[in-house]
């Protein structure tokens, strides 16, 4: 990764967190998907959206530092045909008992997310894409983590069905999310 680009990206993740909190009214992941979806509908005819059965999603890993974490999910095209993805993932956080935990999830803003427009991402066979979340690890007043989460439930634009990605974490407060982007780089 070029050093200059890396510096900019590294500079940005907390700024992205700032943006989550400062954005007037964090929007739900569903709303994000719907917003991006209207754009997707206009262009879907010219794309070849991936089939759910063609995709595998998995947790690539986490990177934690002084109270904040970046969590990256990779998407792999397992089919023999190229296809495309686009937009922000719609996310829900699942508790260990399977219920959905309330969460504020917003599109990431700031330097880390600069240049990450919800543009089309083409996936060749065995090609990979990814998205990432940024969240706080605990409440600064109590020192305690947030509610235990055991999985991410993910919907991707124009891809029927829902994916479940096992991921144990305990975020506190708002989360910011990137759009689907090319490559499997872990933040």
């Amino acid at each position, binding site marked *: *990764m070029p*050093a200059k680009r*890396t*510096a900019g*990206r*590294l*500079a*940005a*993740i*907390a*700024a992205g*967190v*700032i943006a*989550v*909190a*400062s954005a007037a009214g964090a929007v739900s992941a569903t709303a994000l998907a719907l917003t991006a979806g209207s754009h997707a509908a206009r262009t879907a005819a010219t794309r070849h959206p991936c089939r759910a059965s063609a995709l595998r999603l998995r947790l690539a*890993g*986490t*990177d*934690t*530092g*002084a*109270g*904040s974490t*970046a969590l990256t999910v990779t998407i792999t095209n397992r089919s023999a045909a190229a296809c495309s993805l686009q937009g922000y993932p719609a996310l829900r956080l699942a508790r260990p008992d399977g219920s959905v935990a309330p969460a504020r999830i917003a599109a990431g803003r700031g330097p*880390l997310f600069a240049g990450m427009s919800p543009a089309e991402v083409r996936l060749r066979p065995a090609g990979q894409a990814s998205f990432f979340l*940024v969240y*706080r*690890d*605990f*409440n*600064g*007043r*109590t*020192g*305690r*983590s947030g509610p235990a989460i055991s999985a991410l439930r993910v919907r991707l634009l124009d891809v029927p069905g829902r994916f479940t990605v096992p991921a*144990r*974490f*305990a975020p506190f*407060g*708002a989360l910011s999310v990137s759009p689907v982007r090319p490559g499997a780089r872990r*933040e």
Partner: protein
Amino acid sequence: MTTRTARIRRRGAPPALIGVLASLILLAGANAPAPAFAETSGFWYGADSGAPGPSNSNPPYNEPSCGTGRSYGGYIGKIGGADLVSSSNPSGYGPGNTFAWNSGYSASADTNHFRYGRGVGAGGYWFMFGPDNTDGTNLAPKDWGRQQAEWALADWQRWYGEGAHRMPLRILWMDVEVPGSYGWGSNGADNREVFDGFWDYVTHAHEGIKPGVYSTNYQWGVIMSGHTGLLHTWEWTAQISVASSPSPCPTTFSDSRQFADFYGGQREASQHTAIWQWSLGSADYDQIDTNKALPLTMH
């Protein structure tokens, strides 16, 4: 001033003399520098990990919060971590591999420290794994702590590069957080062994770097259950007593509105309580107490 005036009256001084003295006192007060900034009393504002950076682009650099004119008084980034260890990054090196290290902010803090004598410059932390996740090494707890310290010191020296990037705040912080995750199981004795192994290795490496720990009072107590004592270790706390976004920005570790919640038997005024992290919005800021005998270097 009220007390002083009252004392003069008790001695029976003439009203005219009282007026002159009062005027002199007021005049002296008007000419004295306003003690508005925390750094005037040795508390520097800083930042860590991914943000924030300075508010201006030319030195000396300023902190982007708590009013205007405050110096960018320090930066502490992730020099490495057990969560970054892989076959392609065997020592878990941070710079270039994590969002939590920013070379530009590090350089800005160093410029303020070395060129202008402001703040503590750059420092680094290592993200710790507990005994239940040894990155495949299967080391015993204390040996696992030593191994992480060895990597962390190697990462520190790699970044330092024989002076290419200076790190004047010479505390290598162990980032210990999230009970039940990152290898921190419920065995407080084993968890403490990992900490002790790291502490011993850094201390006996004789590289002029002291061990420290970043955590919260709550999480430290849970992770190190029954083994929490920390009387001779530098502390950086991320816990505040009353709110996550104090306003106005604090000027000490403790005032009538809130206090930094340290741990392991230390309190705000203890010898080794060095830094308090707090948040404004969702950005992390730090306050660094240079009234303590921090291991700082000017070279």
